């Protein structure tokens, strides 16, 4: 965050990129739902796989649709800070209650 110098945003992507992202999101969602029917096939790997897939969707929406990939680093830092604290506390509570 440079003092007095407006942060120049990189150009936002266009509709083609947006549609591409939507297609990826749709495919990931289909895979997610598919795991529901193949529960026994994935076994213990199921939960990590689901978490990774939803994290991927999360990052795609935040990065492209909310333009965080292209916006000022400060905004990225602010959101990351909130996410970090929220995830950290959730993990701590799960550790306290589920371990």
């Amino acid at each position: 965050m440079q003092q007095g110098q407006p942060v120049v945003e990189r150009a936002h992507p266009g509709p083609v990129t947006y549609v591409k992202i939507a297609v990826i999101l749709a495919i990931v969602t289909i895979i997610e739902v598919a795991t529901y029917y193949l529960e026994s096939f994935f076994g213990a790997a199921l939960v990590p796989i689901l978490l990774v897939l939803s994290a991927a969707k999360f990052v795609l929406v935040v990065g492209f649709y909310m333009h965080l990939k292209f916006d000022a680093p400060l905004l990225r830092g602010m959101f990351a800070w909130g996410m970090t604290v929220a995830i950290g506390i959730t993990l701590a509570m799960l550790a306290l209650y589920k371990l």
Partner: protein
Amino acid sequence: MVESALKLERARYERSALVEWLTTVDHKKIGILYFWSSLAFLLIGGLLALLIRTQLIVPDNTFLGPQTYNEVFTMHGTIMIFLVVMPLNAAFFNFFVPLMIGARDVAFPRLNAFSYWAFLFGSLLLLSSFLFGAAPDGGWFGYANLTSSRLYSPGLNIDFWVMGLQVLGVATLASALNFFVTIVNMRAPGMSLMRMPVFVWMTLVTAVLILLAFPSLTVGLVMIMFDRYFGTNFFNPAAGGDPVIWQHLFWIFGHPEVYILILPPMGMISEILPTFSRKPLFGYTFVVFAGIVIAFLSFGVWAHHMFAVGLGPVPNAVFATTTMLIAIPTGVKIFNWLGTLWGGAIEMKTALLFAASFIAMFTIGGISGVMHASVPVDYWQTDSYFVVAHFHYVLFGGSLLAIMAAIYYWFPKMFGRMLDERLGKLHFWLTLIGFNLTFFPMHFLGVDGMPRRVFTYSADMGWDLWNLVASIGAYLLGASTLLLFVNMLTTLRKPADAPADPWDGRTLEWAIPSPPPAHNFDVVPVVRGRDAFWIEKYGAEEVVGPAPERHGAESGHNPHNPHNAGSGDEAGHGSSAGHGQSAHIHLPPPSWFPLTTAAGLTLMGAGMVVHATESLASLGFPIVGLGIAMVVVSLLGWTFEPIHEESHA
């Protein structure tokens, strides 16, 4: 002339004084509103404290009785935290943060007014419980399932507490958003982050803490509300619910809250000590980063409030470790303040006395805090008077002493009048003696096994003497607080003759007249370093020693001079220098919508309380609906209200 142009601009909004205050969006006026409201609440909270000490002055006393005692200590804690220390901090955020960063207002002036009105109405909702004989009685921490089940807490007491705190929470969050954006985004040219006054830094850190800590309280209160109103099972053991979940939610908020209460006072101290030592703050970078580290760690220590709950040895050990870690950045700050005083040309003004006593008292409270961090020691001290002694040393000996210092330091800037130093010193010594007399004996009582929150004790426990001493100390404290009010009220009747820079200050607020004009700065200052105003006065090299009589000498050849309007006789000079630019000063017009939005929000809370009554229950949801309608209409008005006048000079 600037003055006449501004007068013209203001004439369009010529209204009665009352309407002006009700609709103001000026950060300085809002700061003054916060100031007097929270001082009034300080009197109420203090009175409740005296009731507690009167009840405990002798064993087997029947002055209050158990139910009243529960209400009194619950309201004392809730008031002092949410209605006194936080809004007093907010008073100084409001008045001084824009001045210290060289801004003309906060980023969202109307949102700022909304924060104040929601704070005031939320406070009044909470306090109105006294009128219905149903003051909250579940402790300021409101442990479930005592508070979440109507079986254990019938009556409206807890409903008032939940709804009042929800409204206050919204006010606080709105204020934190506002100050975060203001500090990050509205700094004068040259005011880089590491040139910001430490008070501004601590305000920023506090805003971040509020943004991340308050949602946890909001969610917890929502759950208590749903358990009470809609029969949910969040904290209902019969359905598998776990009341300890509330303790987690509360302390995930509650521990950062402790730093929300103490970090701004630490910032005040970091302004006051350098001014009266005539030295720059020792180790500025360390003080700033220590504040950030404290804020970061504060989210990882909440369970040290719950050691005795039985989380198990591993969680307890983890939280004990993180808690002890916090002592490190705190210790760093204390040594930096001592380093600031060391070798300084110290001026023994009342503000400095309070600030210096803060260091000593806060250190005592900090040390007993480190004692609690050790789990075995904590088992022994939990729920005893030792804990009461500890947190009063950090909250009174820390926060409030620093706020007193800030009142003496900044009163001239806020009201244009110097507080009386002789009365001030009397106030200081009475406070310091009364405070230690009240709270130091509580260490002994706690170690001797006296439990907190019990309304009386029997004569054969051997606790008579120290309770008597503590109560006498409390009366002294009460008297000293009255002295502060006498001092302020008599001072306000005197002519406004305070100079712009009475203490030979270091930061930008001293560059403009006392009290500042509505637009703050005729010309937006350009900041050339830390202690921006000091540099303008004395050049970049630090000057230690007595100040020269006048500091306006170089204002002629520096077009960006921040102290353009110095004291009264310099005003003309300063204004003419800034004339070209000040023709374009925009002052946001007053607005009713912040007030009506806050009123609608509070009406929603009040409706929920009404819904819990026996006789008027059917009125409850209609009142909530009315509140929602009021909020929606007000927000629409807010959105479409023009915030810049159409025509402009």
